[in-house]
């Protein structure tokens, strides 16, 4: 009797997992195949879901993407995300190190740390208008510096929070010992702090990069003409008589490749990084 109940429970559990898997997979699958469709095959009744059986796959959308401005939007996204990640992690490290090692100094207390976190919690939509006006006053609207610097500032709290956590795990005594042994400050960083921080630092860089790569609202409001990220391009592609859903799906498919690789590489850290968000 009990055994039988167990088995029923198992079957129900596996069924729930199967349904959930399909529910997660279906939209992804549809997006990927739509990127390989001719526009006439995208929306049909019944839907064309199986390549080679229902429709003949084509590379047209990808050819379109890389032969037009759309391809360049990935470059713009890359420029903005790489530079602001580098800046945010670099600046964040300076802060994180001070918070972690010298919390007793003025300015490194919990109060200022909490202030940083409030900046993180501030809704982007509330900040969007003043930030937009800020860059307009400076005559930098729709330029790389505007977008890069905005991303940097809004991501510093994230990197500080993460790096501080990783730094706290490295015993201070190791560094002290190195200094007593006559290492310079720079040597102690190069030989002790950075190697021990290694994976944590890499994960911080990777995930911060993903957040910036994926960002939409600031990309839309602070740029969108001369500087155009792929996220801000998508809504522009819906203007017009016939929406080219296959091209949109193609851009989406390309855009998620790097984040998925990062997810697989840094799976152990993903939880920590998303909880800090």
């Amino acid at each position, binding site marked *: 009797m009990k055994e039988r109940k167990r088995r029923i*429970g198992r079957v129900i*559990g596996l069924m*729930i*997992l199967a349904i*959930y*898997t399909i*529910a*997660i997979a279906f939209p*992804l699958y*549809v997006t990927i195949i*739509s990127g390989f469709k001719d526009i006439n095959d995208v*929306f049909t*009744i*019944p*839907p064309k879901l199986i390549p080679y059986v229902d429709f003949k796959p084509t590379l047209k959308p990808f050819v379109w993407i890389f032969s037009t401005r759309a391809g360049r939007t990935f470059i713009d996204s890359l420029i903005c995300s790489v530079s602001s990640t580098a800046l945010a992690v670099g*600046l*964040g490290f*300076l*802060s994180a190190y*001070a918070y972690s*090692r*010298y919390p007793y*100094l*003025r*300015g490194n207390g919990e109060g200022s740390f909490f202030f*940083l976190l409030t*900046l993180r*919690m*501030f*809704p982007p*939509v*509330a*900040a*969007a*208008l*003043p*930030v937009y*006006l*800020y860059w307009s006053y400076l005559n930098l609207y729709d330029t790389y510096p505007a977008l890069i*610097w905005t991303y940097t500032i809004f991501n*510093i709290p994230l990197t500080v929070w993460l790096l501080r956590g990783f730094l706290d795990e490295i015993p201070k005594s190791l560094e002290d010992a190195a200094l007593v042994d006559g290492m310079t*400050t720079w040597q102690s960083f190069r030989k002790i702090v950075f190697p021990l921080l290694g994976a944590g630092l890499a994960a911080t860089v990777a995930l911060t990069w993903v957040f910036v790569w*994926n960002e*939409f*609202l600031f990309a839309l409001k602070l740029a969108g003409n001369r500087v155009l990220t*792929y*996220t801000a391009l*998508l809504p522009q592609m819906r203007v017009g008589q016939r929406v080219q859903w296959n091209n*949109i*799906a193609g851009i*989406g498919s390309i*855009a*998620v490749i790097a*984040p*998925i690789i990062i*997810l697989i590489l840094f*799976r152990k850290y*993903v*939880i920590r990084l998303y909880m800090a*968000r």
Partner: protein
Amino acid sequence: MKAVKPKRLGRERLLGGIAPLIPTIAIWSMVGFLFPWFLYMMFQEYTAGAMERPRFAGIANFIKLAHDTRFWTAVGRTAYYSGVGTLIQVLLGLIIALSLIKFIKSDKLRLVLLIFYLIPMMISEAVSSHIWLMLATPQGYLNSILRSLGLPALPWIGPELALTTIMIADIWQWTSLPLLIIYAARLSIPQSLYEAARLDEASDWMILRQITLPYLKTPILIAALLRFMDSYKFIDKVLLMTYGGPGYASETLGFYVYQVSFTYRYLGYSGLLGLVVAFGVAGVLLIFWRVFRGGK
């Protein structure tokens, strides 16, 4: 005799005092503008383009807010969208995380499934919005499947369903987060507890109620909090899928701020609204924490 070297800048002063000034200055280069802007604007009346310059309005914006039915309707919609959405995401995440651990015996398969379930979370909101729009648009995939099964098409982004459709898209994308948090927390429960329970011949249900759920209480709360705040904060899906429409049918609080700021350009009022929304987050956080954690 060796000359005494001039004392160099101490490590403590350099790394603890001077270095962190650089990021602080960087942050204040923008925040130093934002804060005064909010504090100034909330007492002004200023419609960009229509007025020469801001006019001092005293507490007029506050009175306007109190009588702004569109604002209060948006509050209600946000409560539904964020509240119900968060509840479903956390419950679903809990069910999937626990099923994954209990019913999938192979470690490799479990890891593969977990990573697969996390993929939606890594996708840009801009892309996921378009994925779901492609499914939900009137002639989109969902309707074409319904039609080919002989069922009537549903107005997924029509007035009645729009907000719910956005919520479903959110659930699809963000159940991953509670799932991951709960999964990790469940794995950190000491295995010995389960072995002891098994020796006592406790039923699965008893084990779930007496061991697993009490242990998972805090992670569940954290997951709920994170999800609630994010869905309250981010407007990407509303903006991209329905633009708050049809009419105002899917206008959430965040999107109302967007409209006031960028469409109507009521700069003064938007300053107040922005602050209210920002501190709304803090308020919600505080209430949430008091209710669930302070109670005991």
